[in-house]
């Protein structure tokens, strides 16, 4: 069973994630207000805030997923506390460095730090090397954590078993729990994209220290950047799904989901497609080989098919005409799955090359990825956080407060997102600190977005207070 140490470190992860989440939402609201003309930040401030908002959000929801699966994995295999602790220390160090780099050093490459932007110093001299070191520290910590979890699983299950290949035959002797299958498939993707991140950092360092003797290839660097960035942003969603497979039926008072041949098949396919879907970030680079472009569209479509069809359908089967004990946890999961599907529609539309030509780098992009984050993955992790925090007390969030939390999340989230979608359809560019006058709808939409984002922030603050309080208690209790 979960050790005291694991409970405590998971509490620390949760408090850290929630704190950084609130801070980053505030930065997001400030960005929207600036775009709306209510605030007048210097562009460099806007873009530094945008950079740290993006990196922090990706980072925290990634580690939230990792902390979640680490905690639940202890039900099946012994996990390494040391690896978890190393990841925590390196994450905190890396994140503190990144906040200093952006807020003090004014580093502002956007979170995608597209080559060669980081090397064209338009900020404090120390910011570029510190940024590269911070990213390397994060990648190292997460690699250690991910590889450690994979190793621990492989001590109990063989390689064919972790991928559930024995389920392709009838009546397998050993059954792979869905949680193990999905965690492993996801960890393989996570480790792969982190290795690419390490390679990317090495190439940056090589050029940085070569004093002009070594120059990277912009197209290769872009491919590597999006292989890392796209993949990690997607895998973190699957970490959330692993948690759902483990907990959805349990908190509803139902028997656990089982792995079947089609669940096994779907997730094995997902492993492949998820690693090639990143090509859709380069559709507008016409020099990229056409085969990659078409493969990108097909992989993007296929990546959504198995995981979505199997997971979404399983959730429907689990709920349709079934007496379920609804609590805040599984309600967050259920709403999160709906948000994930809707964001997925926005993503598939954008991953269609002939649409991408009029959507690429418009607000359609933040529209769809914020959808499956703020109304998808974030809710998966919040569901886990809440479930974790109430395990050791009798106190629950009342039904009335649960309803209020969910309503505000949905209303605030939907309004914030619709402003982005409409902006995207109005051809308004993303990543503009201020809008040219000809975009007449841009400013009002930004302000509407800011108002709704503030509505979304209220339930987050309630949950922050509620969950952190309990986690602090776990942290300082002796058993």
């Amino acid at each position, binding site marked *: 069973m979960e050790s005291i140490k694991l409970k405590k470190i998971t509490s620390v992860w949760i408090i850290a994630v929630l704190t950084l989440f609130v801070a980053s939402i505030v930065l997001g609201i400030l960005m929207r207000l600036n775009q709306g003309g209510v605030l007048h930040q210097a*562009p460099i401030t806007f873009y530094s805030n945008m950079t740290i908002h993006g990196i922090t959000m990706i980072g925290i929801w990634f580690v939230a997923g990792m902390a979640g699966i680490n905690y639940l994995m202890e039900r099946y295999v012994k996990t390494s506390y040391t690896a978890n602790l190393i990841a925590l220390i390196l994450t905190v160090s890396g994140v503190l460095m990144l906040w200093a780099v952006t807020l003090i050093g004014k580093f*502002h490459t956007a979170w995608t730090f597209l080559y060669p932007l980081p090397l064209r110093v338009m900020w404090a001299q120390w910011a570029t090397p510190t940024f590269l070191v911070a990213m390397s520290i994060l990648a190292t910590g997460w690699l250690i954590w991910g590889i450690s979890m994979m190793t621990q699983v492989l001590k109990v299950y063989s390689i064919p078993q972790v991928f559930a290949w024995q389920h392709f035959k009838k009546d397998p002797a050993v059954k792979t729990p869905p949680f193990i299958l999905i965690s492993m498939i996801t960890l393989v993707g996570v480790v792969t994209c982190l290795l690419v991140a390490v390679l990317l950092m090495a190439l940056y360092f090589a050029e940085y220290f070569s004093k002009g003797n070594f120059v990277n290839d912009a197209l290769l660097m872009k491919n590597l950047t999006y292989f890392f960035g796209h993949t990690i942003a997607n895998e973190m969603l699957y970490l959330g799904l692993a948690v759902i497979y483990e907990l959805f039926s349990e908190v509803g008072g139902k028997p656990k989901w089982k792995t079947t041949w089609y669940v096994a098949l779907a997730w094995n396919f997902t492993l492949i497609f998820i690693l090639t879907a990143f090509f859709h970030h380069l559709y*507008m680079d016409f020099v990229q080989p056409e085969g990659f472009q078409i493969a990108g569209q*097909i992989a993007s*479509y296929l990546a959504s*098919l198995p995981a979505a069809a199997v997971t979404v359908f399983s959730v429907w089967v689990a709920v349709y005409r*079934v007496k379920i004990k609804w609590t805040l946890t599984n309600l967050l999961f259920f709403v999160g799955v*709906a948000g994930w599907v809707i964001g997925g529609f926005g993503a598939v539309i954008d991953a269609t090359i002939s649409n991408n030509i*009029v959507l690429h*780098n418009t607000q359609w992009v933040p529209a769809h990825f914020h959808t499956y984050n703020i109304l998808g993955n974030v809710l998966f992790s919040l569901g886990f956080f809440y479930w974790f925090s109430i395990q050791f007390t009798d106190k629950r969030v009342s039904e009335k407060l649960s309803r209020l939390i969910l309503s505000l999340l949905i209303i605030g989230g939907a309004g914030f997102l619709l402003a982005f979608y409409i902006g995207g359809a109005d051809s308004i560019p993303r990543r503009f600190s201020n809008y040219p006058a000809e975009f007449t709808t841009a400013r009002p939409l930004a302000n509407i977005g800011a108002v709704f984002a503030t509505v979304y922030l209220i339930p987050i603050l309630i949950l922050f207070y509620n969950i952190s309080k309990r986690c602090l208690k776990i942290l300082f209790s002796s058993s």
Partner: protein
Amino acid sequence: MQQSSILLLFLFLMGIALIVFIYIFMSSKRADQGMSNPLKKRFWFFLILTIIMGIFASVTIPKSPYFAFADKTPAKVIHVAAMQFSFFLSEKAIDRDKPSGQKIELPANEVIEFRVTSFDVNHGFAIYDKSNRLITQTQAMPGYVNRLRYKFKEPGEYNILCLEYCGVAHQLMRSSFIVK
């Protein structure tokens, strides 16, 4: 306009998803035996999704910009070089060391080819029509030349905006040309 149909399609799909999720959620209130034959229904659900996606892919892939006017000879070639934070457009090749541009006028209803590159970081080259609709775009990447072909139907002034984040004045980086 393409963007409006995209938004409508999205809202339509969102509506369907909402109806299904709300319906399923409500059904757990009048619970009885659960879904009958879930395996069979799952199969149909999966099949229908696959078919819809297959149709969508086979209709849209041929419309990809890489194939647009590929067999035509462009009536005019325009060289484009992007630099923080401006564009140079010229009918002649642009010199890296002394970049300079000219006012561009293009004929309507003829295939135009833009040869787009960058002299520093990545930029975007996005063309907006008179009503501020994004009509086509490509990226400006250092060390590479992207060839974008387009046939302008309407005469008038077209704006160019940078659609790849390139630094602190990214939002001010723009240019324009006339179609006659």
